[in-house]
């Protein structure tokens, strides 16, 4: 561990402890760490996005040769001959991006709708087919399963049970979300089965969520023990 890493590790460790101090109660150390995180994050992402999005996708392509270099009559050629020049497209994309900043000015906020409308329309158009294929067609296809599976002449109990449960779960879950008929009688019974399946799925999700939160705590604890405490002892030659 060099000197700079040593200082960085100490700053990170102290900020971690400041954040943990909120578990006792709200306090100025927590507030300091919170505001510092928000401020640094905002600044970092502005700089990062400028250098990794705006600079390589807009500024560099336009100024690559040292000048803007938009050919004369490019717009006219674009309209008359359909000769699309990539620089025109780049400038148009940049202008659409700029329109989004008009949200900061209440009187001209409507201008931002053009940029947003373009990105929403583009996103929806591009993802429509793939979304339908991946999240609807393939899922329906994945649910069409035989409830009784026979492999090499032998009844496969495990796969049959899994398939049957999956079919019951999908159908009853769909019935639960069918609101055009009152959930009474047979429909109500099937919907109730759907609720059970939903509850099991929520339980699984909650279990995974606990695992995730504990994992994050493990990550921080590991940093405090390995990098901070043991690292400091090693740096000072005590270990």
């Amino acid at each position: 561990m060099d000197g700079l890493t040593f200082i960085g590790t100490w700053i990170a460790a102290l900020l971690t402890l400041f954040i943990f101090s909120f578990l006792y109660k709200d306090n100025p150390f927590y507030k300091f760490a919170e505001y510092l995180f928000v401020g640094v994050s905002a600044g970092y992402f502005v700089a990062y996005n400028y250098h990794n999005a705006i600079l390589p996708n807009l500024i560099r392509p336009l100024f690559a040769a040292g000048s803007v270099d938009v050919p004369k009559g490019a717009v006219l050629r674009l309209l008359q001959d359909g000769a699309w020049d990539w620089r025109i497209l780049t400038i148009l994309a940049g202008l659409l991006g700029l329109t989004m900043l008009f949200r900061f000015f209440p009187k001209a906020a409507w201008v931002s709708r053009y940029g947003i409308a373009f990105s929403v329309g583009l996103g929806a158009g591009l993802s429509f087919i793939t979304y339908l294929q991946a999240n609807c067609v393939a899922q329906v296809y994945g649910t069409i399963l035989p409830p009784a599976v026979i492999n090499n002449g032998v009844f496969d109990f495990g796969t049959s049970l899994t398939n049957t449960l999956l079919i019951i779960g999908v159908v009853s879950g769909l019935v639960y979300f069918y609101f055009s008929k009152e959930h009474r009688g047979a429909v109500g019974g099937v919907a109730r089965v759907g609720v059970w399946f939903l509850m099991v799925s929520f339980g699984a999700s909650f279990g995974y969520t606990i695992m995730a939160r504990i994992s994050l705590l493990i990550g921080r604890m590991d940093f405090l023990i390995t990098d901070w405490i043991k690292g400091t002892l090693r740096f000072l030659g005590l270990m």
Partner: protein
Amino acid sequence: MGFIRWLANIDRRIIFVVIGLAVAGPLLVPLNLPPVTVTSQARAIYDAVEALPTGSTIVVSFDYDPAAAPEVHPMALAFLRHCFIKKHKVIIMALWPQGAQLAVRAISEISSEFDLKYGVDYVNLGYKPGGAIVINLIGTSFAKAFPSDINQTPLNQLPLMSKVNNLKDVAMVMDLSAGDPGIPAWVMVANALFQRKVAGGTTAVSAPQFFPYLQSGQMMGQLGGMKGAAEYERLVKHPGLGSRGMDSQSVAHAVIIVFIIFANVAYFALRRKTPSGGPAAAGGAPPPAAP
């Protein structure tokens, strides 16, 4: 009865301290509990990498940030190790801003174990905003989406990229994801549109929502949370933070289960003792006042 009432109204800070000790204890003094069982989802990814011919090209997308690193970074290390052990070529990219830097860190952490040459054994294309649109673009041409790599080196100057034009030249995709854009985008575009094998490593919170993709075969395998990382570390026989954290994970889960049992016992014991019952009697929030 006094103890039950104390249990029902236990100060939450006591729970925090106990959970903290349950997590820190096993990190300080490993309990050497039995190793995690490898699930079929983790095994499927391992087997797929094993089955690829030596020198196959794999895309690894770093779509996470430092907040998700304790769960996803150990997966990245284990998966990259496996790729380099099998001498596969790795194309690193990122749909999340900080993913590219985390990839640099991951490579630096394992580079001493291998004789890796940048541009030949692996490349880091860096971060590109756009999510699914970027994946769509690399489906037709990597160079269109990434004219240069993270170091601003044009792609045509990287030997590895001279053999790879688009996603069709890639054997499989491993997405290390902590949210959006991530696994859904890769499944929707790389798998549904370009028929590429897609595997995923994700945070435990996100893992359940991708089970339908696994069941339908749209994803070949998944590593879920720190346990998923521990499974892959076990498969590649190189324990890391994932394996190290499993003792803490087990103890913390046991403590949480004990607390849940205590809370329920206290709740029902107090409800039985009071004629009216209800949460107020058990030490919970009082009922709203009548108007």
